[in-house]
């Protein structure tokens, strides 16, 4: 990209969630002085999503507390906001983003950050069936959770578990249904996954794992959920947390390689279009450390990829690779869960500390076939998480990592 004083270059960032906002901020941090336009379909000022299933849903945080960028901050940064208007089409050859209001934005570089949407509920009712992804979703669910009626959560993953924990804290009777016999077993293994089942039970939340949902009928306050084993449960509110799908439909005709996300190189640039960057949940990028293309829906990956893209736009002669150690957290009941690396790829694991009951404070370290540390799951022990994250970055052996985490005192006590 060539910037001249008479013709300053323009970066258009499409997507106003954390990846897009952080990219716009990082462009200024990297010294980019051209025009930055942030386009968002959501009319809301940018907001952060992790609290939507936790503090915001519980009502302990208000909307101001989840803002990622205020109008004043955008102004100070020199970032033009175009909110409430969706991007409809990308013209790669013509370097233009066409918007739903009929206008078009010319760019010298574009950052695609349209993220992912909640996988829609396959069961539709007149009311009372919710997903949790946007601020509107969370506020609508919050209103229904205010009614004292049983809550049924479909999906035992992070969003489902967090929604269940929040609903339970609000005093609701809660049941979680998931066709998988062990929640998040694919991520942390069945052995550890069973501890998450225990966690739900310890907090008085019922589980119907290994059972699917066949149908849901009725309306808010009076829903009937028929399970695949033939039983029927009554619920006032249903929360469906069954994953997310990338918002890539608007790019289908762009000529970019779209395959469950937009395929990119290690520098976050779309394949065959080096002025098109893709960040966050939308990116299926080549991870040079893992030597494979990945799409990761974690907050930290959104921020890190946005930072890499901003650097590469501002400094095209000093390209950085995006090669992070995966990291995700989840807050469920009295557990702060932190997962780093790829524990699901481990062939064995050992636990330091304990995952038992109210005293839980432990870290499970996972070894790959070659004896290397490949991941860790920590509960209520951030120090162990940070240590494992550093050891994974350094390529530690499993045994050396186990010794180092074991030496962290004092494990096993409550924080």
């Amino acid at each position: 990209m060539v910037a001249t004083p008479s013709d300053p270059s323009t970066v258009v960032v499409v997507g106003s969630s954390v990846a897009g906002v952080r990219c716009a901020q990082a462009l200024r941090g990297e010294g980019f002085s051209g025009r930055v336009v942030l386009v968002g379909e959501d009319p809301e000022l940018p907001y952060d999503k992790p609290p939507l299933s936790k503090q915001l849903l519980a009502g302990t945080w208000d909307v101001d507390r989840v803002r990622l960028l205020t109008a004043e901050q955008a102004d100070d940064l020199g970032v033009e906001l175009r909110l409430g208007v969706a991007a409809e089409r990308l013209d790669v050859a013509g370097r233009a983003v066409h918007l739903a209001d009929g206008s078009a934005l010319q760019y010298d570089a574009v950052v695609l950050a349209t993220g992912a949407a909640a996988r829609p509920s396959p069961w539709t009712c007149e009311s009372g069936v919710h997903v949790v992804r946007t601020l509107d979703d969370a506020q609508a669910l919050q209103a229904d959770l205010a009614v004292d009626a049983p809550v049924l959560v479909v999906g035992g993953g992070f969003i489902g578990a967090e929604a269940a924990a929040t609903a339970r804290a609000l005093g609701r009777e809660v049941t979680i249904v998931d066709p998988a016999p062990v929640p998040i077993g694919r991520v942390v293994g069945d052995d550890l996954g069973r501890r998450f089942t225990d966690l739900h039970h310890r907090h008085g939340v019922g589980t119907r794992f290994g059972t699917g949902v066949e149908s849901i009928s009725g309306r808010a306050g009076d829903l009937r959920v028929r399970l695949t084993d033939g039983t029927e449960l009554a619920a006032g509110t249903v929360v469906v947390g069954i994953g997310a799908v990338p918002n890539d439909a608007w790019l289908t005709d762009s000529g970019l390689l779209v395959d469950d996300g937009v395929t990119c190189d290690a520098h976050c640039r779309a394949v065959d279009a080096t002025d098109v960057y893709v960040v966050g949940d939308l990116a299926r990028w080549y991870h040079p450390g893992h030597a494979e293309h990945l799409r990761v829906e974690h907050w930290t990956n959104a921020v890190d990829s946005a930072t890499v893209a901003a650097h590469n736009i501002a400094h095209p002669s000093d390209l950085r690779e995006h090669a992070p150690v995966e990291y995700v957290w989840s807050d469920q009941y009295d557990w702060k869960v932190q997962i780093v690396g790829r524990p699901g790829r481990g062939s064995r694991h050992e636990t330091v500390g304990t995952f038992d009951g109210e005293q839980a404070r432990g870290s499970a370290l996972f070894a790959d076939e070659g004896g290397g540390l490949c991941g860790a799951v920590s509960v209520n022990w951030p120090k162990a998480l940070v240590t494992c994250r550093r050891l994974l970055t350094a390529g530690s052996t499993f045994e050396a990592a186990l010794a180092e985490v074991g030496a962290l005192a004092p494990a096993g006590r409550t924080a």
Partner: protein
Amino acid sequence: MPKLTADHEACQGYGNCITGAPDVYDIDDDGVVVLLKEEIPDSDRARVEEAARSCPVSALGVED
């Protein structure tokens, strides 16, 4: 020189800051951020701001 701030009440021990700037941030046994420096040279500002922006609860600041 830019001064560093940390909101110890807000900190949830997510640890992203330490990955970004391990020479500036650490974490204690209770999972709360520790500032290893009070000030940083201007030449470090962009890198440390990047690490501060990676905090999920915006607990970190870099101020003039």
